[in-house]
């Protein structure tokens, strides 16, 4: 399923942020993903209020030294990964 720039991702049921020894993690059924830098910035915005386009714009501002196209494609790639893990719901 391609990701729609206007859709608003939200963590799926059973997925939430956690922390241990100052390491932020995304907790999911039977697994956990470490979150650092950009991945943490992305996941904290998956709250059902930010559209994919807004997340891209936010991170392009935050990482203004990076190539904007590259920031966008990295974000889409990461969201696709989370979608495959069934960690996100997308609402219109």
């Amino acid at each position, binding site marked *: *399923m391609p990701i729609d720039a206007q859709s608003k991702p939200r963590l*799926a*049921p*059973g*997925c*939430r942020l*956690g*922390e*241990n*020894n100052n390491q932020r*993690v995304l*907790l*999911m*059924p*039977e697994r*956990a993903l470490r979150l650092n830098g950009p991945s943490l910035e992305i996941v904290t915005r998956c709250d059902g209020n930010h559209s994919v386009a807004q997340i891209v714009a936010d991170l392009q501002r935050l990482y203004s030294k990076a190539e904007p196209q590259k920031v966008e494609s990295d974000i889409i790639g990461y969201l696709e990964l989370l*979608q*495959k*893990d*069934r960690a996100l719901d997308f609402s219109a």
Partner: protein
Amino acid sequence: MASPQLNPLALVSELTHRCPLHCVYCSNPLELAARATELPTEAWSSVFRQAAELGVLQTDFTGGEPLVRTDIVELVRRARAAGLYVSLITSGLPLDETKLDALLEAGLDHFQLSFQSATESVAEAISGTKTHAQKLRVLDWLQSRRVGVTLNFVLHRHNLHQMDEMIAIAESSSATRIEFANVQYYGWGFVNRALLLPTRVQLDEFLEKVKSAEERLRGKIRVEYVVPDYYAKFPKPCMGGWGRKVMLVAPNGDALPCHAAGVIPGMSFENVKESSLREIWESSEAFRKFRGESWMQEPCKTCDRRVQDFGGCRCQAMLLAGDAAATDPVCSLSHDRPKVDAILATVPSADLQNPQQQFLYRSNPS
């Protein structure tokens, strides 16, 4: 030897061995822990806090049936308060909507409902109880509540052909994940192995179907499965490596590196009533026994795959080769692989008649 940088990530909390079901493949040991020996609420609370301090992120509440603990809601609350992600691995009974709401209010993150089959008749033959309709009711209740839901189907020769029906159950529920878990031959499953092993033909049909289901359900339901290991070319990375990621605490407080470790002769387990979780993890003999690579024999010792599968399962090596330090005999490189092939050669291709009359059903502890 102990690698100090590694901490456990998951705690399997085996809260009780009591269970309303009598599944013929239960992974619990044949000698079940009596109710009187079960750790009380406060002792589990301490285990959860110590686990979180050790770096554990998640705990699975399992058993037996964790819902038979009268303090189950309080245990969920305590584990969440300790900072853990809490999964309930359950048959779905005893449960009603009020109890379900209390579990969710206490912070339950993930509800994993196990199914014996897609139909009541096969489920009854396997579990010795009528519970299928209750499971479907629980799925209904879950649909209107916000919690992670996994359906776990335990697969064997009597239900492998029902995969389409199993997926249909999942698709009509709020599940975001399906686990197709092939029976593992430990505990009661080992005793009933001859009645449970699927045929190669059944397995090949299953694998073809599951791959297309995985593709079709992508983004909707995550499908997870593994090839049953007697039919695999290489062993599973059992527990993610011995004493490497997972710690299991049995109902009586014994801390084990895996469910079946009790089958290995000469192993003794420290108990959380006497030792801290950190001491047990870092320096107990049981956890150090097969940690790392120094215990390995050939062909594991010089095999490139040893960093992927850690030599496979120590308990299976014990059960099939009579040596817990041997390469897991399911491995195609193992000297003992012919023993597994000999077992597979005895799998009948025709349907078994009335397996219920031959099954040894799991009993219940005192």
